[in-house]
């Protein structure tokens, strides 16, 4: 009988990867990253959007090396294990729009699914509403999947197509070296750097980059995905990916406890607001968009690293979505939702429903 050869794709493998992220994300926070934001794919892509000036929210501008590491780590793993498969052509415009609205929803809650788990494991009760919203959004997505929704087949394509997002990330990293952060300065060459707020808080560049590379590598091997975790549980009653997510939450909780970062409560949690309905609503939108696009924001980065040009378009959609989000007052702040955040969530949900209902094949 055929046996799986990839040890990371086993139960132990996926749990090990979840545990690794669960331990090192809170440590990244200890080493300088913002509160309960050791790793947040949405927030960090938003910071990258700020660093290149797509939005001018001064407190969230930094070229996050973790994101660069995720893509390049996945690329390295894909090449070593001969899994680099350049492919594209499965409804890229839809993926771009889903990426943009996923980001808009995530920034109403203030975090991607990874950060929702990290916030929860550090005692932030508001994250419970975000996680419930995420599950609700994914549940809606699974109804569409069950009724025949899909974005169509990808085509095998030129190797260079698969290289474009990794090269973009490499370019971002080179920009960081050419225009390094100058203490107390809001700009270095063409790059923006926050001097206060979450964007000014970061672990040392080399630590962030190396951990990003490690996580990118093992996540590519294990197919770690927080959206897939709930989706597979709902669709197939299958807990494989979920066990990785549970390990992340458990180990993050233990690490937070050990390093003194566990502070249970609802009020005054770092980079969070207490408007429960919109913590929920923002993540219903994000969860549905992730489900319709086939992966959480982290997974989209890992897929892009292994040559998936459509996942790369989703990533670009998220980065551009962050620009819209802050430029149009749709992103939340610790004070609460932005002036147009609620309208954005409603419009986003309608767009997702439109996509879900109209792209079904039976």
């Amino acid at each position, binding site marked *: *009988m*055929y046996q*799986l050869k*990839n040890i990371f*794709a086993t139960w132990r493998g996926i749990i090990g990867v979840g545990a690794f992220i669960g331990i090192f994300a809170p440590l990244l926070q200890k080493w300088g990253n913002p509160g309960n934001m050791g790793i947040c794919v949405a927030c960090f892509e938003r910071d990258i959007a700020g660093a290149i000036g797509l939005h001018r929210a001064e407190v969230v501008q930094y070229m996050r090396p973790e994101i660069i590491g995720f893509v390049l780590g996945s690329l390295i793993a894909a090449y070593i*294990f001969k*899994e680099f*498969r350049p*492919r594209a052509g*499965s409804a890229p415009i839809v993926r771009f729009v889903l990426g943009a609205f996923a980001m808009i929803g995530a920034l109403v809650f203030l975090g991607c699914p990874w950060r929702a788990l990290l916030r929860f494991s550090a005692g932030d009760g508001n994250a419970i509403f975000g996680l419930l919203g995420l599950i609700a959004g994914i549940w809606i997505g699974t109804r569409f*999947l*069950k009724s025949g929704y*899909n974005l*169509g*087949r*990808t*085509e*095998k394509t030129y190797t260079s197509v698969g290289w474009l997002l990794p090269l973009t990330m490499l370019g971002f990293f080179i920009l960081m070296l050419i225009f390094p952060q100058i203490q107390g300065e809001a700009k270095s060459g063409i790059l923006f750097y926050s001097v206060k707020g979450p964007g000014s808080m970061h672990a040392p560049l080399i630590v962030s980059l190396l951990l990003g590379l490690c996580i990118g590598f093992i996540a590519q091997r294990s*197919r770690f995905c927080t959206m*897939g975790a709930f*989706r*597979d549980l709902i*669709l*197939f009653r*299958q807990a*494989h990916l979920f066990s990785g997510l549970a390990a992340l939450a458990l180990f993050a909780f233990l690490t937070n406890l050990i390093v003194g970062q566990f502070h249970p409560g609802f009020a005054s949690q770092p980079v969070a607001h207490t408007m429960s309905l919109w913590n929920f609503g923002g993540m219903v939108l994000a969860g549905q968009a992730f489900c319709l696009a*086939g992966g959480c924001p982290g997974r989209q980065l890992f*897929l892009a690293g292994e040559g*998936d040009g459509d996942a790369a378009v989703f990533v670009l959609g998220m980065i551009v979505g962050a620009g819209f989000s802050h430029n149009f007052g749709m992103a939340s702040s610790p004070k609460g939702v932005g002036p147009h955040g609620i309208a954005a969530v409603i419009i986003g949900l309608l767009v997702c429903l439109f996509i879900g209902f109209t792209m079904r094949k039976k």
Partner: protein
Amino acid sequence: MTTTVDARGFSCPQPVLMTLDEIKKADKGEIVILVDTDTSKENVSRAATSQGWQVKDVLEEGGRYRIIISKE
């Protein structure tokens, strides 16, 4: 009789959904599933096993996989 599910070009969960549809229809026998990523190969194999089917063989053909599952 062997049925073939062509899930090439689809990313998960489509290959798994397509396989499970066929498993429901077939009840027993042999099914061949064509996929083109390692993730789909692993997911389809895992889903088939969880349904009490056996993964008899996985053949690689130019970066694509032919997964043969069966149930007596």
